[in-house]
């Protein structure tokens, strides 16, 4: 398929990504910040943006757009953490346990003004793909989006966790392997 890209010598594409086909859901209770994020994404080339102002509205928009596979599907979510009716973690946990794969595996970037390591671990354990610490900037958002596109991590599904592999590095382990069983590897 010719997608109009030339190969360069350093393993990088010569042409930037075309985000026109992307539909991004912004979940943010502060309308001013939501509009800032929307303008930022649209200028970056994202084709369409949907805004939800709280946890309940986020679930509604996700169900509305991702119930079946279609052009309307949300491809990525920018998720605020603190909202009046719950946290971003509530949205994440609901999504990652959803029976519909089109909802379960939507990539999520958590955006929060709360900078504690506790939040980073909480969002990671709830199934976030990336975390951006506010204040927002185009540089920060684009960097995390790029990471999602270029370095997607496999999803882990176990009794206690469903989400992207929490290990970002593949390091050799020298200790005793105490796992009783091997994980099943699935390619979709």
């Amino acid at each position, binding site marked *: 398929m010719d997608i109009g890209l030339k190969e360069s010598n350093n393993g990088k594409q010569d042409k930037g990504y075309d985000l026109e086909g992307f539909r991004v859901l912004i979940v943010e209770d502060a309308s001013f910040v939501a509009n800032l994020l929307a*303008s930022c994404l649209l200028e*970056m*080339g994202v084709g369409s943006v949907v805004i939800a102002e709280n946890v309940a509205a986020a679930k509604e928009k996700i169900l509305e757009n991702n119930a079946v596979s279609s052009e309307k599907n949300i491809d990525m979510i920018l998720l605020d953490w603190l909202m009046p009716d719950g946290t971003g973690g509530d949205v994440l946990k609901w999504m990652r346990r959803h029976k519909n794969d089109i909802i379960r595996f939507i990539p999520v970037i958590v955006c929060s003004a709360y900078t504690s390591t506790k939040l980073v671990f909480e969002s990671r354990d709830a199934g976030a793909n990336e975390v951006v610490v506010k204040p927002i900037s185009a540089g920060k958002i684009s960097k995390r989006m790029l990471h999602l596109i270029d370095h997607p991590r496999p*999803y882990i599904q176990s009794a206690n966790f469903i989400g992207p592999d929490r290990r970002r590095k593949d390091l050799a382990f020298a200790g005793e392997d105490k796992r009783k069983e091997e994980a099943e590897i699935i390619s979709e």
Partner: protein
Amino acid sequence: MTTSKIIHRQNKLKAKAGGQEDKQGFIEPKKIALAQSAIDENEENYTDEAQIVLQQINGAWKDLKSNKDKSKESELKKIFYNYANNIKDIAETFEDGLMGYFGNSLRDFSEKLDMSKTAHHTIVQAHIDVMFAAHKTGIKDKEHATAEELKRMLNKAIEKHID
């Protein structure tokens, strides 16, 4: 029997963005600059927005103070905390260091806010007062002499009333 699964998904985002599987991609720097301009252009609306959020903080605080129903306190505190978080957030986005400083301090304090302690009421009110004052002066630099004076006033209130 296995209980854990490792699921390798097709990279649909990369395909949708017109990327090549084995190549590292990028977002055009020109587009990132345009996106940052879209954020920066909203700076002219920041002052009005900050005023709105300050009024929301003030309103939420009045609701908390006048609340007699203990079962509603946690919900009202959450609303108050959220507004404090919002002012910190927008202030830092537009490099208003002074408002960001007060917003951060108020948000952190509201985490341990005990409505049964009058000293806590005084500390919250001191935060709200200096935030309105800071907004009125329009000073964003937290090292500015007037900013230092406002910070000193707040710290004095905290030191005087903290347990």
